[in-house]
C-alpha cells in the first residue's frame, strides 16, 4: 500500500499501491477536475491564491512558510517567462514522503503545478527529482507523457488559451540542491551552490526570471484544497496548522513508513499506528522533523502533537515531517557522529564557516566516539557551532549545528561518559540487536 496508516487521508486517499498511479485512475478519483473548472470558468488568479491562503497550507519541504503568501509575491503581470519549480530533491535524512507521492500519485503533483502556474502567470515548470530515486523519476516522466497526451499540460490547455510546459529534471547526488537557490543553479547546469538572498526567486529565479519553488507535497495538496475549499482543509488540522500531512517515520518502530494524519495528532497516536517500538524497547529520543531539526528526549516528544506550533514549543521543528525514532539501544554519540559526517560530506564548500566548521564538528565527534575525546571537547563543539550559525549564505551550516547543540544539551552525560571512560554506555551487542539486522558470524 501507498501508506501504512492514515486518519482522514487527503493526498493518499483511495490509492491502491502501485496499481493506481496512472492518469485514468487519477481521473476516476476526481483528478484534473479543478484544473478544468478553473480554466473553463476563467476563475481570477487572485481568487485561487486567496483560497490557498485560507487553507493555511504551510510549505511541506521544511520551512513551513505559508504557500498562499509565497504565491502572492510573484509579479503575475511581469511580461516574459515566469517559472514554477517543484522541489522533489528529497535528501534530508529521515524524509521519504515525496518519493511515495511521485510513485503513487504523480498526477496530483502535475495538476497542482499547472494550477499554480495559472495562478502566478507562469508558462514553464520543472520538477527537480532526487537522483537516487531514479525509478520515481521515470515514473514521473511517464505521468507527464500521459498528461501531455491528454492535453492537461502543453500549449493552449483544454482550449483555454493558457499554456504550461512541464518537464522533469533529475539530480545526481547532492543534498544541497534541496536548498531552493542551489536547485535553480543546478537546473541551469551548474554546481549546486546557493545564491545570496535577496534577490529572492520571485524576482530573480531560474534563468533570472520570476520563479516560485514549492515542495512536492505542497503542490500535490493544491487540487484537493481547491476542491474542498480552503477553510475545510484548514479545519482538518488545527488553527495556523492547516490540513493533513505526510509523516515519514523511520528508525526503531515496528512499521516504518509514511502516514498521512491531520496536523495536531498526538505523537503517541502516530507511534501506535507504527506498531509501537521495535522489540518493545523503551523510547529514548526522537528527531521530529528530519536530521536538521533538534533532537528531543522521548518523554518530551510523548507530550507533543504533530504540528508546527507544538514541536516548535518543545524546542525543535516539524521540518519536513521526518520522524526519526530512537530507542534505548541507540548510542547518541555514534548517531551524532554519522549525522555530522553527512553535513561535512554535503557542505558545498562555498562559505568558509560551513566548509571548515562541518569538518571540525565531524572530527571532534568522531574522536569522542572513538575513545580519543578530550575534556574540553564539548565546549569546543559548542564554540564551533556558534561560529557557523548565521554566518553562511544558506541554512546548511545551521542544519549541521543544531543536531550537535541539541544532542549535547539533552544527552550530555552520554558524551561525558565517552570522553571520560573512552567507551560507550550502550554495549555494542545491544546496538546490533536494536538495528534488527541479524548478527553476522565473523
Amino acid at each position, binding site marked *: 500500500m501507498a501508506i501504512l496508516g492514515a486518519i482522514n487521508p487527503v493526498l493518499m486517499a483511495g490509492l491502491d499501491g502501485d496499481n493506481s498511479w496512472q492518469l485514468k485512475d487519477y481521473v476516476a478519483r476526481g483528478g484534473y477536475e479543478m484544473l478544468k473548472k478553473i480554466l473553463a470558468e476563467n476563475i481570477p488568479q487572485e481568487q485561487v491564491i486567496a483560497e490557498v491562503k485560507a487553507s493555511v497550507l504551510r510549505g511541506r519541504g521544511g520551512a513551513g512558510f505559508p504557500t498562499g503568501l509565497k504565491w502572492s509575491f510573484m509579479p503575475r503581470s511581469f511580461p516574459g517567462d515566469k517559472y514554477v519549480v517543484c522541489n522533489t530533491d528529497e535528501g534530508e*535524512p*529521515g524524509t521519504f514522503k515525496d518519493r511515495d507521492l511521485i510513485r503513487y500519485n504523480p498526477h496530483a503533483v502535475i495538476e497542482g503545478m499547472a494550477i499554480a502556474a495559472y495562478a502566478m502567470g507562469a508558462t514553464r515548470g520543472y520538477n527537480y527529482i532526487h537522483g537516487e530515486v531514479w525509478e520515481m523519476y521515470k515514473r514521473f516522466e511517464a505521468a507527464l507523457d500521459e498528461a501531455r497526451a491528454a492535453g492537461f499540460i502543453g500549449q493552449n490547455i483544454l482550449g483555454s488559451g493558457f499554456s504550461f510546459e512541464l518537464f522533469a529534471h533529475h539530480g545526481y*547526488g547532492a543534498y544541497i540542491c534541496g536548498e531552493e537557490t542551489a536547485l535553480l543553479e543546478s537546473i541551469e547546469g551548474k554546481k549546486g551552490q546557493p545564491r545570496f538572498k535577496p534577490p529572492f526567486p520571485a524576482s530573480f529565479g531560474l534563468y533570472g526570471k520570476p520563479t516560485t519553488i514549492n515542495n512536492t507535497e505542497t503542490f500535490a495538496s493544491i487540487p484537493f484544497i481547491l476542491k474542498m475549499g480552503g477553510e475545510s482543509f484548514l479545519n482538518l488540522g488545527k488553527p495556523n496548522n492547516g490540513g493533513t500531512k505526510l509523516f515519514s517515520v*523511520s528508525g526503531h518502530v515496528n512499521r516504518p513508513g509514511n502516514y498521512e494524519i491531520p496536523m495536531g495528532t498526538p505523537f503517541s497516536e502516530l507511534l501506535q499506528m507504527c506498531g509501537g517500538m521495535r522489540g518493545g524497547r523503551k523510547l529514548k529520543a526522537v528527531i521530529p522533523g528530519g536530521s536538521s531539526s533538534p533532537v528531543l528526549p522521548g518523554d518530551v516528544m510523548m507530550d507533543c502533537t504533530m504540528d508546527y506550533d507544538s514541536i516548535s514549543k518543545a524546542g525543535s521543528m516539524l521540518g519536513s515531517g*521526518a520522524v*526519526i525514532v530512537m530507542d534505548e539501544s541507540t548510542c547518541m554519540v555514534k548517531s551524532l557522529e554519522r549525522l555530522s559526517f*553527512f553535513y561535512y560530506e554535503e557542505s558545498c564548500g562555498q562559505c568558509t564557516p560551513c566548509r571548515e566548521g562541518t569538518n571540525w564538528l565531524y572530527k571532534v565527534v568522531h574522536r569522542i566516539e572513538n575513545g580519543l575525546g578530550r575534556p574540553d571537547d564539548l565546549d569546543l563543539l559548542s564554540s564551533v557551532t556558534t561560529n557557523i550559525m548565521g554566518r553562511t549564505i544558506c541554512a546548511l551550516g545551521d542544519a549541521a549545528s543544531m543536531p550537535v547543540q541539541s544532542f549535547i544539551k539533552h544527552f550530555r552525560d552520554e558524551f561525558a561518559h565517552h570522553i571520560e571512560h573512552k567507551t560507550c554506555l550502550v554495549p555494542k551487542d545491544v546496538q546490533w540487536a536494536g*538495528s534488527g539486522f541479524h548478527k553476522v558470524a565473523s
Partner: protein
Amino acid sequence: MFTAETLQKFDREVAKYPADQKQSAVMACLALAQEEKGWLPAEAIEAVAHYLGMPPMAAMEVATFYNMYDLKPVGKYKLTVCTNLPCALSGGYHAAEYLKQKLGIEMGETTPDGRFTLREGECMGACGDAPVMLVNNRSMCSFMLPEQIDKLLEELK
C-alpha cells in the same frame, strides 16, 4: 564518442529547456554518457561540453560536484549502501559491514574480478525501506537483510 542512441537521448534532454539554455541538460547528458561508458573519462565530459556548447571546465565542475558521477572506472555493479542515521537504526551500517565481509573489500574498492564496487552513500530518500542499496545508480533495493543481500549478489553475475 557516443552511440546514435545516446545522442538521441541527449537531444530529448536538451529539448526540455529554452533554446538558449542548453547547458541545463548537462547533468542528464553526463548521466547518459556514464550509462554508455560505465564511467566518465575526461574525454566523455569534454565531448558532452562540446555538444552543449559550454566550456569543458564548466562540465567538469558539474561532474566533480555531484557524487553519483564516477570519474574513475568502477566494477560491473556499483553497490551504494546508505549508512546514514535513519538507515543505520534499521541495520544500514551492519549491511555495509556484511557486504565488506562478503566481498572482501573496503568501501570505495572493487573486487579483483571487476564485478563489484562498494560505496557508502548518503540519504537516498527511502529511509522507511532500510537497509537500502542502490545498484548502478538506478535500481533501489529495499529491506536488505543478510538473506536479501546474499540473493542479490547471486543474481548479479
